[in-house]
């Protein structure tokens, strides 16, 4: 058995930032475990730019963004294992891991940081009828083929779902010579960033059909065509609105799901809305000493926010190791109310907060000119006016600790109110 102070599961942006921050905060014995052949996680296949605007104040590609952290990790001498899979986490924070060289290995961490990221929703999860031919790919799998393995997945493409990876792949496949015929989105708004709609669809004249869904896939062996239709307010297809496209490829960009099979094995409490662990201000889960950060907690829109959140997790895991994390003192639960889908963190212990309590959330629909209202036990403590809110973009609110310091605890809520209400 190997022993470390902190074991980080996942060597993507979340795991890298958490490990580096933990080291900066005085913990030397750290191990990062990565299942792929290199560090960097999904960033390695995101060869487009637009990463790092907030963290580095410049535009980087995914691999460049990852490389900055990988180099720092190497420079700091933090150990890592590649091609290594964590099979199981026990509540006593011991891991069963496996790879080709070590075989089966037990590793124990005084603290564990979960940074496994997320996976893509599949065709089955959304129950698309039709045949099951070759040529149906999730957008991320197609991205890996095209950007990392160097192979094209098709020539005529329709994309279902307007998540960011789907939008990025619409542009990428176009640049590689494929014809991207359309993007269909079930919701009346896109699930992706506005900048991606402009730069990946509008600039290439790829039509985006909102409130549309896929109703049929044709083709016995390889995709030969698909049919989309407009949906009504109950998201049911409207007869007579069918449009057929001849294509050999269907990409799915229909959402991401935090990857928490390991969290479940450790008995960690999960939030049914985010699909990720319930966490406190220190990014600590319901199991003491197990922290979580990045897309395993909730799906982020920008990697920059993943980095920030993961630094917080790394810093607090270091505090936990040094026994500097406060467990007592005033604590506040958070709750999403009208218009807000979820809030992370779920609980705030004010003693551990440095300057402001940062709440991260997503709204449940597109809104214009609304107030985001923060209440403490029903009393308004902060109002932020927003011109435009969309589910595709993560929102954050900072609450100065002065509002909370004198209280002994309570309930922090965020809701949306019409401006002027």
């Amino acid at each position, binding site marked *: 058995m190997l022993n470390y102070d902190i074991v980080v599961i996942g060597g993507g942006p979340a795991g890298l930032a958490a490990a580096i921050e933990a080291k900066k905060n005085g913990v030397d014995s750290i191990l990062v475990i990565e299942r792929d052949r290199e560090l960097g996680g999904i960033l390695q296949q995101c060869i487009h730019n637009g990463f790092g605007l907030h963290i580095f104040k410049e535009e980087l590609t995914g691999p460049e963004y990852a490389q900055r952290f990988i180099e720092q990790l190497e420079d700091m001498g933090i150990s890592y294992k590649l091609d290594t899979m964590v099979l199981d986490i026990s509540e006593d924070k011991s891991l069963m891991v*496996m790879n080709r060289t070590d075989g089966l290995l037990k590793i124990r961490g005084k603290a564990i940081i979960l940074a496994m990221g997320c996976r893509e929703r*599949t065709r*089955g999860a959304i*129950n698309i*009828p039709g*045949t099951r*031919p*070759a040529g149906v790919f999730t957008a991320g799998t197609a991205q890996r083929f095209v950007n990392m393995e160097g192979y*094209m997945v098709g020539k005529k493409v329709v994309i279902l779902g307007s998540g960011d990876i789907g939008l990025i792949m619409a542009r990428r496949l176009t640049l*590689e010579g494929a014809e991207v015929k359309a993007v269909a989105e079930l919701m009346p708004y896109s699930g992706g960033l506005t900048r991606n709609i402009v730069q990946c669809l509008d600039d290439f004249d790829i039509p985006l059909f909102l409130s549309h869904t896929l109703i049929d896939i044709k083709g016995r062996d390889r995709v030969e065509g698909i049919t989309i239709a407009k949906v009504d307010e109950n998201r049911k297809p409207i007869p007579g609105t069918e449009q057929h496209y001849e294509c050999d490829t269907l990409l799915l960009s229909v959402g991401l799901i935090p990857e928490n099979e390991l969290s479940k094995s450790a008995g960690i409490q999960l939030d049914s809305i985010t699909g990720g662990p319930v966490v406190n201000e220190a990014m600590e889960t319901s199991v003491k000493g197990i922290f979580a950060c990045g897309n395993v907690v909730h799906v982020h829109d920008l990697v920059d926010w993943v980095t920030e959140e993961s630094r917080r997790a790394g810093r607090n895991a270091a505090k936990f190791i040094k026994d500097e994390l406060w467990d007592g003192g005033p604590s506040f639960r958070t709750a999403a109310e009208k218009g807000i889908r979820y809030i992370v963190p779920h609980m705030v212990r004010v003693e551990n907060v440095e300057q402001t309590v940062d709440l991260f959330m997503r709204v449940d629909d597109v809104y214009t000119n609304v107030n985001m209202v923060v209440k403490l036990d029903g009393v308004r403590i902060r109002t932020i006016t927003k011109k435009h809110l969309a589910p595709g973009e993560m929102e954050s609110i900072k609450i100065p600790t002065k509002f909370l310091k004198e209280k002994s605890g309570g309930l922090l809520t965020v809701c949306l109110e019409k401006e002027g209400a």
Partner: protein
Amino acid sequence: MYDVAIIGAGVIGCAVARELSRYDLKVVLIEKDTDIANGTTKANSAIVHGGYDAKPGSLKARFNVEGNAMFDEICKELDVPFQRIGSLVLAFDHEDVQAIQELYDRGVINGVPNMEMLDREQILALEPNLNKDIIAALHAPTAGIVGPWELAIAMAENAIENGVELKLEHKVTQIEKLENGYGISTDKGKLKAAYVINCAGLYADEVHNMVADPSFRIIPRRGQYNVFDRSVGDFVKKVIFQCPTKKGKGVLIAPTVHGNLIVGPDAEELDCKESIETTMEGLGFIREQGKKSTEKVPSHAIITAFAGLRATPSTGDFIIEELTEAKGFIDVAGIESPGLTAAPAIGIYVLELLKNSGVILKEKESFNPIRRKAIRFMELTDEEKTELIKRDPRFGRIICRCESITEGEIVDIIGRKAGALTVDGVKRRARPGTGRCQGGFCGPRVMEILARELEMDITEVLKDRRGSYLLTGPTKVDTGIEESFDAVAAAKEL
């Protein structure tokens, strides 16, 4: 010249092949597809039926009960996943109770052992997730669940190990009667055989008509299913049938041998023998119909849907006979449910027919009924795992994260007799890509391994049949990037 040619490598053709491989015969198994078990065998309920359903005196009734009794041994010999978990037919009203009583009586005549009627308390104690308004159920403890394609693949592998030849991607186009046998034309050339066993599934009528006048039709009858994540695999413990009524047979809910849950099928007669698409109506029907058994069907955990075609005979019963007008040509046709259960018994019956037709069955001393065990890495003890990785480090590399399948297991099933040649072939044998991410993570890795092991380019790797190509070529090779930029620029100017 072969002694026997078997047309069709579904579960029936494979069962016949394995039985024949016990004897000193030159046998060829001919399959039009890229893999064994690629038709009805890969898309059905995966149930080993008790045998109370079929009409007494029918071939279905006989081979169901006989086949059922053979499963323990054959699955043990061939290392096929099989669990005798029992089945329940649920009754929710008086009419249902009468119907299950009839099933019970029929079961007694058919020779189904150990059936019993259960009352509400007994049922809910066994199956707490069922609807509480249930009043009675017929329990058949001999019913079970099996891996249907695993069974077919294992029988084929064992048959080949014992001398049977397999010809994949050989589509039979014509059969001519010769003086002492048959000339079989395929799209890959001709071969001769003294005896022909027609196990062509959905196409058994067409193959029959190559040597004789039409005497039956095979009607493709589609059934659709949903498969659920392993997290809800123990939602029910037994195979849960609904009571057959005038409105239909109802849908079943059952665990699978892989730990998933399956719900389905509906039944829809079609004209086309290739229509294996699911439909919104069909999937909607099974979801609604499933609620009759339990309101709590965990639809959030659906991971995939599929459809299969039953090879329904126009005659109503299995057709297993030597043709009077074509001696030495044996039809094994119309093998719809309970065909999977009946398969091992049908294999033996075909031997009898051959013997009656003059084939001399001389047992081979070298016959080995045991198939080398599949390696299921995650089922090993920690010590065994460690040992195995030391011997072959490929077992230390997980390829499918959802099902924890290692590279070593995938290489093993590619290298076996009747081994995997396609991504779906790998999936059926070792299960990568069957989990909740449905191959999103392991797909590219499985393709890489297939290309390496079979020494082909990755762009040649198929998902399933010929034509199910996955990649269209390398990037950055004359893809017309410049042109697409120009096209976009031109479009902008317009």
